[in-house]
């Protein structure tokens, strides 16, 4: 009996050994295959693509996929608040949006705010740049302070200015009252409210324009100014023929950036005026927000967003076209 058991155990032991050997061989083969794969993967020809892949994947998941998804939704009947599946709608929502007078009204409001705000930022930013292009005591410290608003969050700036404009205790209202003896209710009228938004946006972003213009100003070689002095150029001629050509490109870049950004202005408007009085300061971005997240008109808001994107792309390309035309003309 014990012999039978011992021989059975020996047989089992032998079988186990064979299995282990097989496993070991498989593992070795696997290791070799893995090594070959790593070698193939890390080949200098593929290394660049490999390094870029995580960023591309992240971009796809966070940006490209949602973009494509929302673009798709704009062709379907769909409400995010409902669990009903989407139904194909074709261009229905694009037609609806383009025929909606409210959309055109919001575009006009946005255009007014963009024009006034970008113009104000250009004037103040350029003036600041001219000031800081010169050396004076505490220049660096003051420059840092001037740049601070740009680093604040939109929400904080919105709340600051909402409180500044408060007629009873707001600091701007108090200052106005000190000089005029009247209470200031800036946000009570359409153009007052637009001015309130433009001031807040310009306060925040004029330093950005200043930085770009300042970069242009400091890049002007001194010998050009010396030559202008030799030619007895007036200050205006010096600016027109020496300074401006160096600043022009960056100034146009500032216009491009600020136009695109102001076109999307949401936070400051939403906090300071909530689009009021009435709807006089409701920008297209605020309207899209209401449509998407308050009214849950998901498809319609997606369509409007893509129309908005199209408008920005067209404006940008028009701008670049004219800049290139000018450059070619100049050369």
């Amino acid at each position, binding site marked *: 009996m014990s012999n039978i058991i011992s021989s059975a155990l020996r047989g089992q032991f032998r079988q186990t050994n064979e299995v282990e050997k097989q496993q070991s061989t498989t593992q070795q083969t696997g290791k070799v295959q893995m090594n070959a794969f790593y070698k193939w993967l890390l080949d200098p020809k593929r290394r660049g693509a490999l390094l870029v892949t995580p960023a591309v994947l992240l971009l796809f998941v966070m940006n490209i996929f949602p973009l494509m998804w929302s673009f798709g939704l704009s062709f379907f009947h769909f*409400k*995010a*608040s*409902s*669990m009903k599946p989407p139904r194909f709608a074709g261009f229905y929502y694009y037609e609806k949006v383009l025929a909606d007078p409210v959309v055109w009204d919001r575009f006009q409001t946005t255009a007014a705010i963009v024009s006034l705000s970008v113009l104000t930022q250009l004037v103040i930013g350029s003036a600041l740049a001219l000031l800081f292009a010169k050396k004076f005591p505490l220049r660096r410290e003051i420059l840092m302070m001037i740049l601070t608003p740009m680093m604040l969050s939109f929400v904080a700036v919105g709340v600051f200015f*909402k409180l500044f*404009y*408060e*007629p*009873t*205790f707001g600091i701007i209202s108090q200052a106005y009252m000190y000089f005029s003896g009247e*209470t200031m*209710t*800036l*946000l*009570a*009228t*359409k153009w007052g*409210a637009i001015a309130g938004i433009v001031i807040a946006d310009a306060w925040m972003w004029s330093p950005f324009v200043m930085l770009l213009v300042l970069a242009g100003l400091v890049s002007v070689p001194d010998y050009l100014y010396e030559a202008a002095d030799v030619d007895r150029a007036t200050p205006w001629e010096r600016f027109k023929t020496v300074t401006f050509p160096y600043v022009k490109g960056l100034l146009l870049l500032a216009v491009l950036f600020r136009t695109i950004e102001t076109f999307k202005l949401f936070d400051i408007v939403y906090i300071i*005026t*909530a*689009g*009021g*009085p*009435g*709807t*006089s300061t409701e920008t297209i971005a605020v309207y899209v927000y*209401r449509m998407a*997240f*308050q*009214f*849950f008109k998901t498809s319609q808001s997606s369509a409007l967003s893509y129309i908005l994107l199209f408008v920005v792309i067209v404006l940008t390309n028009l701008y670049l076209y004219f800049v290139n035309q000018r450059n070619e003309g100049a050369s």
Partner: protein
Amino acid sequence: MSTLRKLTSTIALGAVVGAFAVQAPAHAKDITIQMAAPDWGPTRFMQDYANKTYKSPTGNNVKLAIDFIPWGSFYDRVAASMTSGEKKYQLVVSDSQWIGTFIEGGQFMKLNKYIDADAELQNILKDVHPALTESYGTYPYKSKNIYGFPQMPDTKVTFYRKDLFCDDGEQAAFKAKYSKTLPCTYEDWESVDWDTWGNIGEFFRRDAGSKLGSGTTPDDFYGIAYQAGKTYDFSSGQALAFVWQNGGMIWDESNQPNAQAVGVVNSAAAVKGIAKYVDLLKYSPPVAKTGQMGIFAINNLFSQGKIAAIVNWNAVSATAFDPKSSTVADKTAVALPPGTMHNGELVRWDVMGGQPFVLTTWNSDEVVKESLEVVKWWLSKDTQLNFAKKSGNSALQSVMAMPEYDGIKPWNRAHKNVLKWQKDFWHVPEFFELLTQQQEEFDKAITGQSSAKDAMDSIAAFQQELLTEAGRIN
């Protein structure tokens, strides 16, 4: 060991084992009820009190975990959670007007079958003030379908400066000017109508340096204020009270599809109500002209000692009694809000405030059962009384009837007495579109861009078109 000691030990051991057997059965599960809630006193209390006292009667280890969300982003976060399909919350605090969106969207759960099968829940619903059940729980509004329970009921009451209203000099001057009594006590305020409210507004308007009460005012001082802001419902919340009190109506969602908007929303009575609402703003601080006089703005101005009286949500203006945030904490008293004289009676119809909490649809039967146990615990007399003592308003009539209730918080008496006058506005999924357009039109009237009639005509036309398109009006 003596026989007695052995016996005692055996009994003690048996008792301990027995107790464990009852409290923690072998199948006891750990269940967490996640609840989305705005971050403020009433929900903070709920979490703290649950941590201290809540024990599920089922024997499971149930924990209430509230996700505190700032008020400013509360709707956005709840809406994002409900629509994204993340199914994170078992309970949700919701404004009553949002429930239609999420009921028709399939996220909020109908509770009738659970209520029908549970005598305790039925008793609780009998005890909850009927105006609260109607506003917070029913969909369609005023139907028999129940979806929610009160988490924090709220009403608007009058907060006033008793040092000014009870000042002998001011009393005499008011009497001489208007031949009326300047209300000083709660009982005096019971007969105040909106005309007298206007008199108060005009009377207490003083320039900086003028005499005020027993001293002088360092800043410009204003008589009255109520909400008139474009944000969210910060004008509808007051303006509709004027519509209802003047005999006007809003579109009646409980009578779909026959109820109409045009001819009802812009009736002569409704226009008269809105005209009165706008007219009285001339006695308010200048921020009223900007359409930015929201519920927090009036509370701040009152707490800074710049207004004699405000009508506001008691949950918001409770801070007027806090010396840390209010310069008039020791001078403030609370009374009923003004009403409108109608057939010899002061009617006080007003907009219901506060929030219900609701169950979501994606939970297992066991989690639903545990969530309803949390509801029962919250609406138990003991919890509601403690809630009233700390930071909230009770929803139960039995608690409000307790002799000590009126004295717990300064606004309790007024809150209890105005509850029967509360109505809610729309619960349908089109709520936000209806509200946004109405707010825009009220804002135009408040800022002088349009008349009350033009505003109401525009609102009625918009609602007729929107609700017809949505199939809610024939």
